[in-house]
């Protein structure tokens, strides 16, 4: 009896917190959870008269187009490998830039750097594809007409040659997206207790020691959070990056075809609510599984860094 009362009293004290949670929770319910009911369409032959819930079942038919092809293995490999590369490169470069920018003494330069790394973030991927084309065009490109002859090298048929594309895509992605992570890390570094560094200075620690002993350990929670969240998107790919930037060139498909571009090309003419839902569901399930696993691993290692 006594204990129950205590619990209720304890609970009562949290009520304001639950009220604070409420508006966001309601929004997420409406915006994210209600439409999730639409996932059933992946298993249905949709027709508008019967609606989402009463359309006839189709079993796994909507998934067939994803696996029926010889391409399936290539597509999945590309999607996974690129995402892994993106996560690693963007994390490393992002942290590096964040540390550098935080250490810049000159406030004016600091502002300049901070603004400039965010600029590519503002340019739509279609425009990025034009910029890349300006560099790589066979006819007028700056590489083939300017840079390579200057270095005494042969022009490259960029859009027919798969060799360089993994690098080009990773660099383009890093260039466009690194500002995002950098700013988050800068904020996290700003949150580190300044007295740690003062103490380290007094002890005569080198800059490198300060980075590895203070900055990086303090960044770990942010890094893990970003990492787990990126792992959830590992089966997704930025459509524009893999479709627009290589100019949809057929010879490059072996290194540029990902799940999203494949689905787009396959459904471009035939369409189909059911099949696109099926592809989406597959991406979600893989991401979900990986996230649960990685969160479990993190939880084992250090409970407070796990996301949930």
């Amino acid at each position, binding site marked *: 009896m006594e204990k129950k009362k205590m619990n209720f009293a304890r609970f009562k004290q949290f009520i304001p917190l639950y009220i604070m949670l409420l508006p966001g929770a309601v929004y997420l319910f409406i915006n994210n959870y209600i439409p999730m009911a639409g996932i059933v369409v992946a298993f249905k032959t949709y027709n508008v008269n019967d609606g989402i819930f009463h359309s006839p079942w189709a079993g796994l038919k909507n998934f067939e187009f994803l696996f029926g092809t010889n391409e399936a293995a290539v597509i999945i490999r590309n999607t996974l490998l690129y995402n892994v590369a993106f996560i690693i490169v963007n994390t490393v470069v992002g942290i590096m830039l964040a540390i550098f920018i935080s250490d810049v003494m000159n406030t004016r330069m600091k502002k300049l750097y901070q603004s400039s790394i965010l600029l*590519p973030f*503002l340019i739509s991927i279609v425009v990025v594809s034009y910029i890349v084309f300006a560099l790589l065009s066979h006819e007028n490109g700056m590489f083939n007409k300017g840079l390579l002859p200057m270095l005494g090298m042969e022009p490259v048929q960029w859009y027919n040659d798969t060799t360089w594309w993994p690098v080009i895509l990773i660099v383009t992605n890093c260039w466009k997206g690194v500002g995002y992570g950098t700013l988050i890390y800068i904020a996290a570094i700003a949150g580190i207790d300044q007295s740690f560094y003062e103490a380290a200075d007094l002890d005569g620690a080198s800059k490198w020691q300060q980075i590895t002993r203070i900055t990086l350990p303090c960044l770990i929670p942010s890094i893990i959070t970003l990492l787990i969240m990126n792992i959830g998107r590992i089966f997704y790919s930025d459509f524009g990056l893999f479709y627009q930037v290589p100019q949809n060139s057929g010879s490059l498909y072996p290194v540029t075809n990902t799940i999203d571009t494949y689905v787009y090309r396959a459904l471009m003419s035939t369409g189909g609510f059911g099949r696109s839902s099926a592809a989406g569901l597959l991406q979600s399930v893989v991401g979900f599984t990986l996230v649960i696993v990685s969160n479990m691993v993190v939880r084992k290692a250090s409970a407070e860094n796990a996301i*949930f």
Partner: protein
Amino acid sequence: MSKGRKAYQAVINIILIIVSLCMILPLVLLFMSSITEENTLVANGYSFFPAQFSAGAYEYIMQNSATVFRAYGITVLVTVIGTSLSIILASLMAFPLSLKDLPGRRVITFYVFFTMLFSGGLVPSYIMWTTTFGIRNTLWAYIFPNFLLGAFNIILVRTFFTTSIPADIYEAAKIDGAGYLTIYWRIVMPLGKPILVTIGLFTGLSYWNDWTNGLYYINKSNMFSIQTLLNRMIQDIQALAAHSTANSGSLMQIPQVSIRMAIAFVAILPILIVYPFLQKYFASGIMLGAVKG
């Protein structure tokens, strides 16, 4: 400053200047292309030093200057309302979730996080937003679907709160008799400024850059936001060129290649202008974080 420090400053400044150039130069190229004469652009490709200049692309955009300015207005309104709401909602959710002793914390976090992993797809949300909420062709169509509150932001903010705000501050406040709302308002919000400014910036940019909501939910030109308008222009020009059988010459008037660049530039110009002012808050947020300890 010691010698080592000076060398370190020099090295990082050089690296960062190179990085900044990589980030800025393409934008310069973009701008130069937008003022390159159309035919020169098609014949010679993009160049930092075009042979012939022309303001044709901007003239074409400015033909509808009333629509363009109206669209800027709508975008500004949407960005301001959306971002303010978003910051409030995200911090209101992140604060309770950052408290380790909140019963059900893990479940609720999972409830939030799960929304990142599964989505019902476009069509179901479209049906819901249009039929149940009737947001088609309203301002809300830009604000509500997708962008208002993302799990990503909530979790980032939560992580920041847990790691950067010492729990003893809360204890001290509680002893002083402060309720959770007071703690949220007086302690968490000010101390959380670096991350709130950061996610505010991201949310603001995504509202500013968003053309998808406009694409799906808006078909009245007096409700176009700037991105919707510009994106629509590009798409229409492309579609018209692809289906071109026109013989009255209307298509010939449009600078089809330089306009893409001009449009991209028109869309980001206001951000370039406003950013330095925003950055004052941004930098002060960081300073505040730094001073805090």
